[in-house]
């Protein structure tokens, strides 16, 4: 279909093309303007790279294959960005639009500036005209959607800066003026291929009735140069605005931590470290500094943060952005402040420079000590920024250099130091729970190697009344399945997880080394534990201290036994315990930190007659019980309790049993559910307890 009134000529699509620089004189000016544009662009990024390079070393270019996969999935494929529907849609529109428009510009450049005249024929019609027009429209629509969100619906998670608004405006103007000049060129030249550029043609058709050719031709020149100046200005601006994420985000994803959140804390070499923990930008690694520059201000991290959700001052987004701001403001000092934090090579000491912990910013001690280390922020971040390890780095500084931390954590650490468990004032010893069960203790065995598995009880299992039934159930199930296992009894010490999360790396290291030594003495190779925190330490952290074991969470181990047919309901199938609906609360350190979501659910399927329902936030988006990161030992203000927020969600599913797989979750949710269940009878029970009820010996099955 050709425009009415156009000259009808014989059309050969293989010859289709258009004139580059139609109607434009002084085209050399384009190249002249391009020089400062690219210079500023390059300079801006060079400044960034230089800043990152002043950070401490970090190994983030190893395993290129895995990195490439991650890059393809979450950078190119936008795997995480699209998890939020609205933002995912508009970002995809703009993102794909930009890629296509960039390709189109490259095609023009090749066509015009090299002997390869590729912009013709079907390729010109289908790609350079039709597809480019469609994706140009994507950009317009995407930006409009983003604008509606930013200016009209205004969700809490965004940061409302002028910069962000101007970014939307410039992109919109670029796309719009692009269509204007295309439209006027089509109209004035009576482009026979107009139909292949539907949006541009729309502009042509819209202008034709009321504009003369001369007016359009003049307008075309003006808008063409305007478009060019805006585009070049925008390019030069990119490295200095959050648009730099176009480049920093993919780089950040490529260099992301591949080892899971559970292994994301750094070790400290106490022999050589000049400072413990971080209170100076110069003590961060280059990857940490890159993180600050990669932030897109999307706010998803803060949106999912349990501490923030219940109204505490912690906001991972603002921590990243405040540190980014500090880095930009004090960049040169940063370059001069390279100092040792144990993995660097020493420097000129920067104690007065760049303190990052500051009561007046988002990096306040109060905010830092509200973090449960749940890693929800890291899981939500579309560009793989590592917020939680930075929070722990700063805590380390407060704890080890300043001895400054909340009171509850102080008692916990005192207890860890003198009693090797965090539960000051417990009524129980580490072996009380074994009463009547006849369980082997390694130290009392003739040959401890006979035990194939070490059952690691954990402080939370042995010393907290509420959880002793869980470890009893686990032990009874292991016995029923004929597993040869033993415990360390009094020789068990805390794995050190609470110390490490709070920031007392020194204490953690002491405890870890002590445990590794004990376990070495008994030749331990396989460990099963009902505490996800112990599980995580053994799996991801003890290898640094010479302790490598085959580690199972009790739900994983029991799931294997079930699969092997070593556990079943004596042929009767799983008995009912009277509950009709069970909902499982994923512990952060089992799920997000270590990727196990299915084992506990498989076990719950054994509970006769009960149906499983999921909470809205489950599996990798599970919402913390509030007990991680040493927070189980801190008294939260009554109106800011993470456990109650979670308990409410569990209660709202209508389940009469909230299943847990962690002693901390158990106590936190017990408290929370009791506060929120109202008149209903809702119980919090460990998966092992439920499984024992379902398949254990019936005479012992009653709780």
């Amino acid at each position, binding site marked *: 279909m050709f425009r009415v009134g156009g000259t009808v000529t014989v059309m050969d699509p293989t010859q289709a093309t258009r004139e580059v620089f139609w109607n434009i004189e002084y085209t050399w000016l384009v190249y002249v303007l391009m020089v400062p544009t690219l210079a500023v662009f390059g300079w801006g990024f060079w400044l960034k790279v230089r800043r990152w390079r002043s950070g401490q070393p970090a190994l983030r270019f190893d395993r290129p294959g895995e990195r490439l996969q991650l890059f393809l999935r979450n950078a190119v494929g936008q795997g995480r960005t699209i998890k939020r529907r609205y933002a995912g849609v508009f970002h995809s529109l703009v993102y794909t639009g930009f890629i296509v428009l960039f390709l189109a510009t490259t095609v023009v450049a090749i066509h015009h500036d090299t002997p390869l005249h590729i912009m013709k024929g079907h390729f010109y019609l289908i790609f350079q005209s039709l597809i480019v027009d469609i994706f140009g429209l994507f950009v317009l629509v995407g930006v409009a959607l983003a604008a509606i969100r930013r200016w009209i619906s205004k969700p809490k998670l965004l940061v409302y800066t002028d910069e962000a608004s101007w970014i939307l405006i410039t992109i919109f103007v670029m796309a719009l003026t692009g269509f204007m000049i295309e439209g006027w060129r089509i109209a004035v030249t009576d482009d026979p291929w107009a139909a292949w550029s539907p949006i541009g043609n729309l502009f042509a058709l819209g202008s034709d009735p009321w504009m003369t050719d001369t007016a359009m031709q003049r307008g075309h020149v003006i808008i063409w140069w305007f478009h060019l100046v805006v585009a070049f200005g925008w390019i030069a601006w990119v490295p200095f605005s959050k648009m730099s994420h176009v480049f920093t985000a993919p780089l950040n994803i490529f260099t992301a931590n591949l080892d899971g959140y559970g292994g994301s804390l750094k070790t400290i070499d*106490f022999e050589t470290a000049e400072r*413990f923990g971080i209170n100076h930008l110069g003590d961060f690694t280059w990857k940490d500094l890159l993180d600050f520059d990669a932030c897109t201000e999307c706010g998803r991290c803060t949106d999912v943060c349990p501490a923030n959700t219940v109204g505490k001052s912690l906001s991972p987004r603002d921590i990243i952005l405040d540190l980014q701001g500090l880095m930009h403001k004090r960049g040169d000092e940063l370059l001069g402040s390279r100092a040792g934090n144990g993995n660097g090579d020493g420097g000129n000491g920067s104690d007065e420079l760049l303190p990052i912990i500051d009561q007046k910013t988002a990096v306040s001690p109060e905010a830092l000590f509200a973090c449960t280390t749940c890693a929800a922020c890291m899981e939500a971040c579309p560009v793989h920024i590592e917020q939680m390890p930075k929070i722990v780095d700063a805590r380390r500084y407060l*704890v*080890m*250099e*300043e*001895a400054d*931390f909340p009171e509850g954590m*102080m008692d916990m*650490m*005192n207890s860890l130091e*003198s*009693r*090797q468990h965090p539960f*000051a*004032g*417990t*009524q*129980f*010893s*580490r072996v*009380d729970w074994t009463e009547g069960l006849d369980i082997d203790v390694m130290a009392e065995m003739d040959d401890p190697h006979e035990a194939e598995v070490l059952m690691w009880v954990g402080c939370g299992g042995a010393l907290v009344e509420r959880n002793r039934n869980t470890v009893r159930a686990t032990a009874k199930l292991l016995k029923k399945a004929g597993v040869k296992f033993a415990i360390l009894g*009094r020789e068990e010490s805390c794995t050190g997880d609470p110390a490490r999360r709070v920031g*007392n*790396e*020194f204490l953690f290291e002491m405890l870890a080394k002590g445990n590794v030594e004990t376990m070495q003495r008994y030749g331990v190779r396989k460990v099963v534990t009902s505490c996800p925190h112990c599980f995580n330490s053994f799996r991801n952290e003890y290898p640094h201290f010479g302790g490598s074991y085959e580690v199972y969470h009790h739900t994983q181990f029991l799931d294997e036994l079930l699969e092997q047919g070593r556990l079943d309901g004596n042929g009767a199938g799983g008995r009912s315990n009277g509950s009709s609906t069970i909902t499982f609360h994923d512990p952060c350190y089992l799920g997000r930190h270590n990727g196990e979501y299915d084992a506990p659910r498989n076990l719950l399927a054994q509970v006769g007659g009960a149906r499983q329902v999921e909470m809205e936030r489950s599996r990798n988006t599970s919402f913390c019980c509030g007990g991680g990161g040493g927070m189980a030992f801190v008294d939260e203000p009554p109106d800011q309790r993470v456990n109650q927020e979670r308990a409410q969600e569990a209660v709202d599913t209508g389940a009469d049993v909230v299943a847990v797989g962690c002693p901390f979750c158990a106590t936190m949710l017990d408290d929370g559910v009791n506060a929120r269940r109202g008149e209903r009878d809702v119980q919090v029970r460990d998966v092992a307890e439920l499984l024992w009820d379902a398949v254990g010996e019936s005479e012992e099955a009653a709780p």
Partner: protein
Amino acid sequence: MRVLVCLKQILDPDVPARDFQIDPEARAAKRGGANLVTNIFCENAVETALQFREAAGGDVKITALCYGESSAEDCLRKAMAMTVDEACLVERDGNTNPDAAAVGRVLAAAIRRLEQDGGPFDAVLVGRESGDWGVGQTGGVLAEELGRPALGFVESLQPGNGSVTLRRQTDVGIEVAEAEPPFLVTITNNEDNVPRIPKTRDVMMSYRKPLQKLGLADLELDSEEVRAGSSIFEVEEIFIPADEVECELAEGDTLDERVDQLAKRIHEVVASIG
């Protein structure tokens, strides 16, 4: 200025009830699974001394002294991690539970020895009592041995002009006293002298601070009497009181009946105890 703080290592008073065992032969508590910790009032004393030094603006040297087994080194290290300057351990040899008179004599001899080497101690701080036996005599006996004036239940020391201002807790309120060194005080706890958690750097440094070890022979105290460790009293018997609970429910169909029944039983029980 020199300040001395005396420390005692004791069985963890927070030991779970079931883990607390007694050796009737030795007439003492058994170590069992319990941990060893610094007596809390002694830690309050360390904290009080540190705060005194901070208020005085430095130039106060703090020494920690302990009479105990070699494991008590941990208590002294911890005190040094809290930034006490130096420590001395007099290793015990003999009775594991010497009484206050014996301990006072040993500590006095050690103090004299330390003073010979490093000059007199202006203030000696002792915890008000220990969390194991709770006799609360050591401070007094030690003051007597040293021939110093002493004040008990002090909660803070403030530097004054050539003297020290002491706040002490009494039954009727706080008493403020001026003291001219040398003196001895026993320290009690208040909300301000909660022992600090050491900084990690100081924990590491504590291993480089001087810890002197002395034996009873070094102090010329090698007598049977001191080693036996009991000169003013002897423990005759030690046991864990059995607390038996008998539970009885007041019965009756209505609340009134149950209340009547309850009142009646209370009368009977009281009468039976006489």
